[in-house]
């Protein structure tokens, strides 16, 4: 999409020539993630309000973008009713105070909702339909438990289209352990403990908070609060502790609350523009989109989804896994990440994978997670001019995977962190330039 897109040869009567445009990632933010229960920080906070805070923070961080230049607001939610209903991309845009001329829509690909929002508006930018767009996602799993209000067609089971376990994500993770017996619970637990540790370190080193927008939280009992950090993380999680957890999806199974992502509430959003518009408005280019792919797999082992989607995306881009220096993969379940690394011959603890930890530590508010991966990859690109390509990838319920390949615009430059990224650090002022931990190097 990006590099080799010469003008289409046109016959004299075929209308104007088209040029595909480069799509760049300018800014990404998210709300802190909260526990999806009645004690969670967002228990009494509306899902659409979470999106509103994200949109406003994006605009605040990029004052160079006139709001009326936004051509689309695509917001994903898996359950599109209640406070996530009513075409949330449009309602959130109005609530956020965007001009009425800015349109919006709601989109759903279960866990890859926000990722699909990104690829959809990116395609629109590439083809010239949009100059700038906001893409993101939200899931308030406390207000909308997974599968809420769904009415699966009885043919799924009656006609054996899928095994009943395909509709239970935990069960699909157990199925994955069956398929890959060498991916043991112990390896999954070890990966989970490492995710917690990497996240704790990233948080301490100021890698997480700069991408968060604090959210005022309502509570009749406690009064107003301010959510400033993720609520799910369990720093100091040990292998021993993980080993004691029960396996809710299957007696004597392998999947536990410890080696899965927790049910959570949160919203994400990012700003994508065409590269010429970024230049025109002086917006920072933090990532350039190379390409993307989605792929279907057996719904019973949906966790394998990222394998074919990544193969497909790499093939289309003419790259191999060896070209990829950073991988942000959603940790719905540890075993699903291990299936991916195992397939590509990466070690369980490959340092390219999720350097800030992942959903096992942060939480996975379904439709929102895709953009979290991108926002984190963008931050890592800023610190790693030695890395040229990175991917964001995730598995999707009902057997799918999605992968987006990104290029680091800093690749080959000397500085550790481009000035482009500084603007995004204003949330807590942590200055990446002065961060010397090098933990991800």
């Amino acid at each position: 999409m990006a590099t080799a897109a010469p003008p289409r040869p046109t016959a004299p009567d075929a209308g104007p020539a088209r040029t595909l445009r480069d799509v760049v990632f300018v800014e990404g933010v998210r709300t802190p993630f909260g526990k999806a229960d009645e004690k969670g920080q967002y228990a009494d906070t509306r899902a659409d309000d979470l999106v509103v805070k994200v949109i406003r923070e994006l605009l605040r961080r990029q004052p160079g973008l006139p709001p009326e230049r936004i051509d689309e607001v695509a917001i994903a939610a898996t359950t599109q009713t209640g406070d996530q209903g009513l075409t949330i991309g449009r309602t959130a845009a109005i609530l956020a105070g965007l001009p009425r001329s800015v349109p919006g829509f709601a989109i759903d690909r279960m866990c890859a909702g926000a990722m699909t929002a990104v690829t959809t508006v990116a395609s629109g930018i590439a083809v010239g339909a949009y100059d700038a767009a906001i893409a993101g996602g939200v899931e308030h799993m406390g207000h909308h438990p997974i599968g809420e209000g769904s009415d699966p067609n009885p043919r799924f089971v009656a006609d054996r289209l899928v095994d009943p376990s395909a509709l239970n994500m935990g069960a699909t993770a157990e199925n994955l352990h069956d398929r890959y017996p060498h991916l043991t619970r112990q390896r999954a637990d070890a990966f989970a403990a490492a995710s917690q540790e990497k996240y704790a370190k990233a948080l301490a080193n100021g890698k997480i908070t700069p991408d968060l927008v604090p959210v005022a939280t309502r509570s009749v009992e406690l009064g107003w609060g301010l959510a400033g950090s993720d609520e799910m993380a369990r720093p100091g999680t040990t292998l021993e502790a993980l080993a004691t957890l029960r396996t809710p999806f299957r007696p004597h199974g392998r999947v536990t609350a410890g080696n899965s992502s927790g049910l959570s509430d949160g919203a994400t959003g990012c700003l994508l523009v065409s590269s010429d518009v970024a230049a025109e408005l002086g917006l920072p280019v933090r990532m350039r989109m190379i390409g993307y792919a989605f792929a279907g797999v057996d719904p019973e082992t949906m966790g394998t989804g990222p394998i074919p989607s990544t193969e497909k995306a790499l093939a289309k881009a003419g790259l191999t896994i060896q070209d990829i220096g950073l991988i942000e993969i959603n940790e719905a379940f540890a075993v699903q990440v291990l299936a991916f690394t195992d397939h590509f011959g990466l070690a369980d603890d490959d340092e390219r994978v999720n350097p800030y930890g992942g959903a096992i530590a942060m939480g996975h508010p379904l439709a929102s997670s895709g953009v979290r991966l991108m926002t984190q990859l963008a931050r890592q690109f800023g610190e790693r001019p030695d890395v040229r390509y990175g991917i964001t990838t995730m598995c999707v319920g009902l057997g799918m995977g999605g992968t987006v390949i990104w290029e680091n615009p800093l690749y080959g430059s000397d500085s550790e962190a481009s000035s482009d990224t500084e603007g995004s650090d204003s949330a807590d002022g942590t200055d990446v330039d002065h961060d010397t931990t090098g933990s991800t190097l």
Partner: protein
Amino acid sequence: MTTIEKDRTTATPAVGSQADAANGRPEVVTKAITRLIDVPSPRTPSGSIRVALITLDNGRDHTRPNTLGPLGLASLDAAITSAVEAGPDAIAVTGKPFIFAVGADLSQIGSFTGRETAEEIGALGQRVFRRLSRSAIPTFAFVNGAAMGGGLELALHCEYRTLASNAAMLSLPEVFLGVLPGWGGTQLLPRIAGPDNAVTVIVENALNQNRAMKPKDALRLGVVDVVLDAADYLEQSLAWLAGVLDGSVTVARTEFGGAGDEEWAAALERGKLIADMRTHGHARSPYRALELIELSRTSDLDTGLAAERAVLTDLVMSQEFRAGIYAFNLVQRRARKPAGAPDPSLARPVSKVGVIGAGLMASQLALLFARQLHVPVVITDVDQARLDKGVAAVQREIDKLKGKGRISSDEVNRLTALVTGSLDYAAFSDADFVVEAVFEKLDVKKQVFAELEKHVRADCVLATNTSSLSVSAMAGDLLHPERVVGFHFFNPVAVMPLLEIIRAENTDDATLATAFALAKPLKKGPILVKDATGFAFNRLLIRFTGEILTSIDEGTPPDVADGALEPLGLPMSPLMLVQLTGPEVGLHVAETLHDSFGDRFPVSENLRRIVEAGHRTLLAWDEQGRQILDPEVAAIWQLGDRPSTAEQVRERALRALAEEARLILDEGVVADAADLDLAVITGGGWPFWLGGITPYLDREGVSERAVGRRFAPPGVATLPA
């Protein structure tokens, strides 16, 4: 003529009904909860600052706003204690969604029987709030929604104030009700915003039918430091707080707005002029408030607060405040839940309206129905020329609304399409409600209804806007007299909230319920009236102005007679009232009332002469701008030789009011004195501090002198015995 505009007073201080207070209804306690939160602060070495955020929340939704009674204040007191004990970098106070706090529960205060209780509540509020203004820790008010009275004063006690861009009601309405801001408002607001702005908020806005500030007004007046967008108001307020603490945000504020002698004098003089204009010197609260504003300049805060507290106690224990609270409840409650209205479920839907007559009243009615109900309205009249004129008049009014930016061009198109004219009564065949506003002659109106009945459905309501004729007589010869009802508006129709709904002899409940159901979307506060000549409001008013005209006829100098009611502070003098009604209409109504009630309603021969001479006005203004009788009118007016003093005229007019009010009640024309009070407030703009009229007649002893008994026992709308 002043009116009570309901939309302005909608959310004024939460006031329970008299009954609630009398029953000792427990306080709906606004709990104050302190929560410690860490706010990112890039410029602070630790990266964050700690804020003790106090949330005010009574646990109800926004329709029951936060109020501050003794228990609520105790909760706030405790919350401040825990906030201070936590040793935070800042203390902030905010409210529940859409509501900050709307002040004291005034109905509770309005039921205090002793000075001590009044003193205590003043002292308690001041003491608790003062902890914030005295605090060594910086204090912030995050005014996220409605803030009135004591709620706004709480914010004034904080060092800094942010305001949400969607905050609906901001005001200090106390002076409007006959008291004053007594939890520090008179002392703090001049210090924060300067004397002139303090006068605007405390006196001018309050006396201007309790006008509320919009967020931009509050910012312009210096009442708040910054207005922040509603979409992420609390987050940005906390960020702003962090900015103030780290020095990246500075708030430019000079004590007393930097006002010097001249500004002070001008501000106080302006306040006095406004008070004179609005109350004619007869309400104490604005003048006391001005004195306290003046005091704030020279006295330290604690001395000023003590003075404010003492004045508040005096005013709480005043007749004016008791009447004010009573009047407020009438306008807020009784006007919305009219007494005696039948079961609303009996009402029939109204999806098409007919208006008969194309005169001024008729076109006003057509526009009102089209604009408020958004249903087709057909006007008719006797010939095409008049009809065209009537429709054109409506169109002109629609264009005027557009010109003022009150309606969009889509709405212009919609209204234009809704209002049509027809000479043929067949156009009413599918109407649900037809109101006539034709010439005020019984046989003309009977003819109109008889003809109409041939065309409309049997359940179509036939309403009359007559001001003096018998509705029952009008319905007498109809096949379906049960669907006739009186629907009496007051001029100007778009502005005056009063609507008399008249139940005639045969009016059935469904018809009456339909009439009442229309009142709400038409934004009128109806009262139910029995079919009696002059109904209620005009009968009271004509009786009263009749006494003035008679006094002049007898030989009292016109200015003495016309000025005799000055001490009541009515919005206009009796002669001005006659002039505004129109001498001809006034004469006609007086004649009708005279026919029904005899000599209580004399017909002034002088007025007849004035009308016959073609005068449409009575008054003029002399070189000093004083209202005087028009010399030409004066020349016609033949004065007798039995002059009265102003005092005699006043006593006579007030006794007449008391007598007529008593007769209206005894005859069952209205159910309760409260309906008469509501009528004179919403129909005549009579001031709150009179409580309409009957509380004033009671407290001045007029009721007992005139008819031997009061309208309500002491303690209801008046001070307890």
